[in-house]
């Protein structure tokens, strides 16, 4: 895989994540008690032996940069290759209205040109899975396809926003690919992970820019569906499509199924910035059932079917059910939460009752005190 580089495309629409992306980009949304979305595409690339990774940024990327730092956690603090932060177009003095992610590729085209690798993997932060690109790159080379696209066959497709759906022929060649389309008659969803030659990527970028087309998937891939040979590669592991609050909430709770969390967290190690937290403390009066918890929590109350991020405190008599509590949030004495997402540092004072619905969890924004 020395000959393969990776680009993680974080220059994407993110408003569908509502409150969670008000202060952060999609890639730095906290996920699965200890992680952020970026940890998955980044660890997948590193675990597959890719050592040159660029991350395209568009906005609100402070927390992302804080999280990845120089890439040391992923062994990407290298003299040769390593981690490259690829800033948005306006930092190069181009302050026109934002047109699309092709702009981000284009502003960083020097990085792509200069990289010594012949192949490139393009990935995205909102498809959570634990996969090995080595087989995919091998299949790509063997098939002779121009582009290989990773997809998963799903029994039901729920949320259509930002999803690309596709049809393939019997040789796995992609015959149809649509974004945000009506989901009827489709059962294959694209993971929006692509393998191609670097030369082809440069060609696609150049062509899109010269024709005033700015959407990587719609213009760069779908626009070339007839001209190029695009192959599908079926992925069979667990997949979280994080394209709405509902899907985020549901997939996090799905992690409570050991089969799913073992697949997502343990197929290969998922690396993340760690914080020197002591173990989680459970007291004599705590009651916990079906819980995933990070370190540094102090649990004195009752927690069921929930995820606790680092340093969460749950006071005596509090009852937390079906909820996601992010880093350092606190639930006061005798407060009750059901179907709730607490963002970081939220404080719920004693004796409060908060509830959402299974399909519409209540979200409390970062740093809010209730």
């Amino acid at each position, binding site marked *: 895989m020395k000959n393969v580089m990776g680009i993680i495309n974080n220059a994407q629409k993110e408003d569908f994540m509502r409150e969670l992306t008000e202060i952060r980009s999609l890639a730095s949304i906290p996920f699965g008690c200890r992680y952020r979305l970026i940890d998955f595409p980044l660890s997948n690339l590193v675990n597959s032996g890719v050592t040159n990774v660029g991350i395209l940024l568009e906005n609100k990327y402070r927390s992302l940069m804080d999280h990845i730092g120089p890439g040391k956690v992923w062994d990407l603090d290298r003299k040769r290759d390593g981690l490259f932060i690829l800033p948005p177009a306006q930092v190069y003095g181009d302050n026109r209205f934002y047109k699309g992610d092709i702009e981000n590729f284009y502003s960083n085209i020097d990085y792509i040109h200069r990289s010594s690798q012949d192949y490139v993997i393009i990935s995205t932060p909102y498809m959570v899975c634990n996969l090995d690109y080595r087989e995919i790159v091998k299949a790509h080379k063997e098939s002779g396809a121009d582009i290989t696209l990773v997809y998963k066959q799903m029994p039901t497709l729920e949320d259509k926003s930002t999803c690309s759906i596709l049809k393939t022929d019997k040789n796995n060649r992609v015959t149809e690919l649509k974004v945000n389309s009506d989901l009827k008659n489709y059962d294959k969803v694209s993971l929006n992970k692509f393998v191609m030659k670097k030369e082809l990527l440069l060609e696609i970028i150049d062509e899109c820019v010269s024709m005033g087309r700015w959407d990587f998937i719609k213009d760069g891939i779908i626009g070339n569906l007839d001209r190029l040979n695009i192959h599908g590669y079926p992925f069979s592991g667990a997949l979280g499509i994080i394209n709405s609050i509902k899907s985020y909430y549901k997939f996090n709770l799905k992690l409570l199924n050991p089969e799913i969390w073992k697949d997502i967290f343990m197929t290969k190690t998922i690396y993340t910035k760690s914080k020197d*937290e002591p173990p989680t403390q459970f007291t004599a009066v705590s009651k916990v059932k079906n819980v995933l*918890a990070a*370190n540094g929590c102090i649990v004195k109350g009752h927690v069921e079917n929930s995820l606790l991020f680092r340093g969460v405190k749950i006071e005596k008599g509090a009852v937390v059910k079906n909820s996601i509590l992010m880093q350092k949030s606190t639930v006061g004495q005798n407060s009750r939460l059901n179907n709730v997402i607490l963002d970081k540092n939220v404080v719920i004072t004693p004796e409060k009752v908060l509830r959402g619905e299974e399909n519409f969890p209540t979200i409390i924004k970062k740093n809010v005190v209730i």
Partner: protein
Amino acid sequence: MPGKEIIAMLLAGGKGTRLGVMTDKLAKPAIPFGGEFRLIDFPLSNCANSGIDTVGVMTQYEPLVLNSYIGNGSSWDLDRQNGGVIVLPPYLDRKRGANWYSGTANAIYQNIDYIETYDPEFVLVLSGDHIYKMDYSLMLKYHKEKNADVSIAVMEVPWEDTNRFGIMNTDKDDRIKEFLEKPEDAESNLASMGIYIFSWKYLKEYLVEDTRNPDSSGDFGKNIIPMMLEDKLSIYAYRFNGYWKDVGTIESYWSAHMDLLEENSELDLYDRDWIISSVNPHLPPIYISPDGDVIHSLVNKGSQIYGKVEDSVIFFDTIIEKDAIVKESIILPNVTIGKGSYINKAVICQDVTIGPNCKISYGTDEHNKITVIGEGKEIPEGTTIDTGFELE
């Protein structure tokens, strides 16, 4: 290289013989503690938090785990361009030949060259096997205020325990008049914590002097400090009031863990202003299944609890299977406790697999002794092990 005002020398060669099978393959400072740490994390984190960025760690006994654990020191932010942490094993010298570190002071003597590289004014001598949080910069401030040649950190111990410690007799200004190793009838209950600040020019002089004496055991407590007292150097006791524990025996190791379970434990590991750092393995969150039950316990990441855990400390990457019961025990990393097994008042070392339906530390004795299962053991299904057993 620019000089340093103070550097730390950490003695990490201890065998920890009284810890039995726990130290069979491990130097005492490498012993896991508190669900997350190793003993050496405490002095290393204290150094980093006190602003001491140069630490020499002297290893000798079973150094492999310790060396790879310390690595380049980045876990404690001690990977520095100038200074940082470095492991100092005994070495072959052109003139002196090969020498093991014969005692605490001798270990420092053999590393005079390392210390001189930094041309320090003061040298902090620490030991790698105590549990405590301490700001050494305050001790240094005290050392300077007293214009001392040596400062020794001390704490008051119960009078009945004075015969287990090095005891300092001081004047009313806390200047040390006399040092007695494990006295029978102590006049004072100020015990040495094995933490010293020396003004380097004096320490160097005495280290060189001490090596000329063939009968010396090269030890601070036995040789260097008594020599300095005889010469009327100004040696002061620095009083420390916080939590400090020498986990030198299985009983004290076990009870220090039980201390941690108290809700307002004296040793606050959750204090974000004095973080104890450690090498963090990359592991998934803790999982507690719908049948799992955890009461009054500490559990670390990567552990999966399908059974019942009570009054225990569970390190990382451990599986407690369904219907297993773990009580008043310490389970070190990467252990599996089989279905229906019962563990009571035991220390289960790293990489142990306990099969289904075992009974560990099983007995009716009221004063149950602690059972220890040594590293890497595989206990077959249905085994019963009596209380107080040590399995190598």
